[in-house]
């Protein structure tokens, strides 16, 4: 079947469209009260670009692309740690408050 040899790009396109549809549904299902944490999480996961930075930083040597890679890893790491921790902080505020019961 010809479709076998379909190129990488079309596969990327397929994945892209499916992911956009999922994004649409998943984001609309986020409760409005958690829209701020949503910004935090998306911030953190968008730094998955670190994958590319690691590949660039990977080989031995000191050429220019390696420097970009290392810089990319630093910046993306700031984001990853920062994003997840800020989100964690926000979300832990939304915990059920058991001490409320005692107070009333």
């Amino acid at each position, binding site marked *: 079947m010809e479709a076998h040899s379909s190129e990488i790009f079309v596969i990327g396109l397929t994945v892209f469209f499916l992911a956009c549809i999922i994004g649409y549904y998943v984001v609309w299902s986020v409760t409005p009260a958690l829209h701020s944490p949503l910004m935090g999480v998306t911030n953190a996961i968008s730094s998955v670009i670190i994958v590319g930075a690691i590949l*660039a930083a990977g080989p031995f040597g000191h050429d220019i692309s390696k420097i970009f890679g290392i810089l990319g890893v*630093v910046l993306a790491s700031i984001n990853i740690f920062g994003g997840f921790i800020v989100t964690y902080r926000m979300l832990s505020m939304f915990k059920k408050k058991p001490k409320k019961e005692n107070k009333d």
Partner: protein
Amino acid sequence: MSANMVAVLYLLSALLFIFALRGLSHPESSRLGNIFGIIGMIIAIITTLMFKSVLSYAEIGAAIVVGGAIGTFIALRIEMTALPQLVAAFHSLVGIAAVFVAAAAFYDPASFGIGNFGSIGTSSLVEMSIGTFIGAITFSGSILAFGKLQGTVSGKPIVFKFQHTINALILFFIIALIIMFVINQSPTIFWSIVIVSIILGFLVVIPIGGADMPVVVSMLNSYSGWAACGIGFTLSNNLLIITGALVGASGAILSYIMSKGMNRSIISVVLGGFGGEQAASVTSDNSDKIVKQGNAEDAAYIMKNADSVIIVPGYGMAVAQAQHALREMGDILKKEGINVRYAIHPVAGRMPGHMNVLLAEANVPYEEVLELDEINHDFPMTEVSFVIGANDVTNPAAKTDETSPIYGMPILDVEKSQTVLFVKRSMATGYSGVDNELFYRDNTTMLFGDAKKMCENIVKSLG
């Protein structure tokens, strides 16, 4: 690790990211969601470290430690009220990181399996330069947005002649540069694209008022996602494509929700010139109308004798950091047997979910915090609406005055409750610059003062 194994692990990581967002559909599941996100990221990083071309563990490890330490430090120190700035600052990092990755792929395409320096495939070049362009705009736009939100840069919209024409010309210039780049693969042109895109990012955000920044930040968030997608196409990496699409969709939807809540089109936000101090010109002349004033004791007395109170927080509560004092006030009222609830407008504050986070920080249980549609029909049966630092989101002009810029925006019907208490420092307008006729109503009492101080005084009077 085999290519198949890598693909499966990346897929797993992408699915975990999807479940991370999915978890945010309820506060109960949200923490688990965040953990999924973290696990997904760890899997992605470890998988990549296993590539046989990745050798310099020391440098990469050091980079992660340095970056991680900075990120952790910032994230732990930041005040919850400074969240909008923080998000903007983080976006700028994603943007520039995307540029760095594209640059690395350009200089060392072999590491990414897309050819050799000077002989990269056309489609990779196109994807790479689009990623670079979006990344660079995200970088500079976010930096300026950060400055405006932080107050480092004036929040005034800086409007100058022909700015849209100039921006359009720059855009065409960038497109021309991209075409040249695809043809001759010259490093000079690559960096020209970066620099001109950075300039464009500044120019696009300059005319937008400080208060419109949240929409801009959200749009830049969306851009950073599409930039990641672009890089994902270049590297044929489904993980980047899926994650980029999720982030892109999220930013776009949040901008849409905000613009809708503000009753403005995204386009009008992007074209700029709105949201600065001069917007206050819409204020009509109300100097002859009578305003009923009260103080903390009056407020305490009125609320103590009510059966039900709905608290409507707004931007002023965030500015004054009044959430803790407010929660204390609410607790005392609840102990008196009064039904106390919080009503949150979709665009109260300056960021989606802004009020919810602050109230949660102050330990208000989320069951007491209700969205507009959940609580709006309860105002007629409520004795006291306690509006603290909110203004536009209660303005009935949105329903009655067709000429008002906020006409059509959904509002909280506080005017239907028996008494409305307004805590703010002056008669000044809110974000939209529109006067609020509620201040002059018979059933309204104005409590002038800083939100936090006022709450503390009310607590004293109640005690």
